[in-house]
């Protein structure tokens, strides 16, 4: 065993036994070494910062033209004003990225290499989930805090808000939490559907179509179903103030969202384990 591998000693020497840490490192390399990830995360930061500044500046300049009810809404929940617009776009970026993290493995054939390396399969999925959610959380929080401070500074004269106000810090961190779990939600759908277009359609259906649809359900049934939808329940944690008609508290809502996501991840893990690759 010498001709092709004169230095194959490095394989055995220093050979850490493969561990979950190794899988985490591998998934981190996968994530950072593809352009779409980098672009989606850059987009997330730029949009969050840009929209916070843009919308607060517009609000301040148009303050005299704003109706009193709207003014009152903004004063009541300045955080929603500051982070709201950027947040909507970030959701889209995280959904697409979450789906791609999984479906690009299938569309390029990389999944075969991945599963040859980790034939038990599910540890690969869990490592992917861990790395992806932590990265999304960190990037989202790192974007949300400066956005908040910029927006709060611009809004100060009209609707003063501080990080220490009740619910505010939770809402800013909550934006990161919501996006991280949303990323996992998208990743799970990507793992179940395995095709990019189908999975993105699926997640858009969940986030954009299902919500208005359940509004059409009659009476309190509609309200209840609506409140327990993944995106609706999950977004509660990103709002500093609770609406008077909210059925769930922010943390309850977040728990409901996490439950949805774990069910989908459970299905994804089962299918990953049992389907032919």
């Amino acid at each position: 065993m010498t001709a092709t591998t004169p230095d194959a000693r490095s394989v055995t020497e220093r050979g850490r036994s493969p561990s979950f840490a190794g899988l985490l490192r591998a998934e981190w390399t996968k994530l950072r070494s593809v352009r779409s990830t980098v672009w989606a995360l850059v987009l997330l930061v730029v949009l969050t910062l840009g929209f916070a500044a843009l919308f607060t500046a517009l609000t301040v300049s148009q303050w005299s033209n704003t109706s009193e009810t709207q003014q009152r809404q903004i004063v009541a929940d300045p955080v929603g004003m500051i982070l709201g617009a950027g947040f909507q776009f970030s959701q889209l970026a995280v959904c697409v990225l979450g789906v791609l993290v999984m479906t690009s493995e299938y569309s390029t054939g990389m999944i075969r290499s991945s599963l040859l390396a980790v034939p038990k399969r599910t540890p690969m999925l869990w490592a992917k989930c861990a790395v992806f959610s932590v990265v999304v959380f960190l990037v989202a929080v790192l974007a949300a805090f400066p956005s908040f401070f910029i927006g709060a500074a611009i809004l100060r004269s009209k609707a003063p808000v501080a990080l220490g106000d009740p619910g505010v810090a939770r809402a800013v961190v909550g934006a990161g939490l919501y996006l991280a779990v949303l990323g996992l939600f998208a990743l799970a759908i990507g793992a179940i559907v395995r095709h990019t277009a189908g999975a993105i359609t699926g997640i858009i259906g969940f986030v954009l179509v299902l919500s208005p649809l359940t509004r059409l359900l009659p009476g309190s049934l509609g309200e209840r179903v609506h409140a327990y939808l993944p995106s609706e329940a999950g977004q509660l944690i990103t709002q500093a103030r609770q609406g008077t008609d909210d059925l769930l508290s922010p943390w309850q809502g977040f728990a409901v969202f996490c439950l949805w996501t774990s069910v989908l991840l459970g299905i994804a893990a089962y299918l990953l384990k049992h389907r032919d690759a």
Partner: protein
Amino acid sequence: MIEVHDLSKRYGTTLAVDHLSFNVQVGRVTGFLGPNGAGKSSTMRMILGLDRPDGGSATIGGRPYRDLPQPLRVVGALLEARAVHSGRSAYNHLLVLAQSQGLPRRRVDEVIEMIGLTHVAGKRAGGFSLGMGQRLGIAAALLGDPELLVLDEPVNGLDPEGIRWIRNLMKRLAAEGRTVLVSSHLMNEMAVTADHLIVIGRGRLIADCPTAEFIERSSHKLVRVQGPDQARLQWAISGSGGQVAATDDGALAVSGLDAAHIGELAARHGLVLHELTPQLASLEEAFMELTSDSVEYGAQNQERRDRSMAAAPGEGAQR
């Protein structure tokens, strides 16, 4: 090293692998041969834990692939289909695999140099030529310095240069004492590289024997004979029990007598010989003979014999 026992796999209504059993012995190159659609890739995918068998088992050193704690250190695999993210560089692709097995980063550099990928290591794999892509696949297979290599149609679509590179590599791997299982639908390719053959057709085992024996067993030995006086030659040979047929270029194709015998015969009769060439039936012919009943797409026997295996066997069905 590889034990396949009573393995079956069904895709829809097609039985791709049909109660197949064989062993791959340590330390030699075993060719896995069969026409397109015979079930070679399916079998390899089950050995590698990518597909689940519907029946039977495939194990490596007694364990299913899924139970290997560091699979890439035991088995290196090159699949027929691409298995690389097109947007990732060759270096990062190998790094991902190394990290997943707990291999040091240095090993990636070693393999890249060994396989001759240094100048493209930083480029996106999506832009690689077929040959470069194949090299990257081989680099991934050798990353963990495995004892066993499973290569599915490694020369498919490669140019002569690439084919030679793969052949030499396999010889080197075998010389290092590694076990290689390599599939192909090209008989001649196997003749060059494999010590032992496992031949399958329609998912079933047709032959499991040394390559030499396979050729020997299924070939009719012919001797080409040419001389200025063909008529007397023919008479002398027929008189000694040989069968003579004329070939297209005017030579005699003799069966039933070996070359030495014919030479002595000619000397005894004072006949001049211009050519005396023993001929082994080509491997393709031997292969066709054995698999003629098991080609996935039925074709007329004669038609098939006329055509080389390099042509798609499916063509015959459309005539």
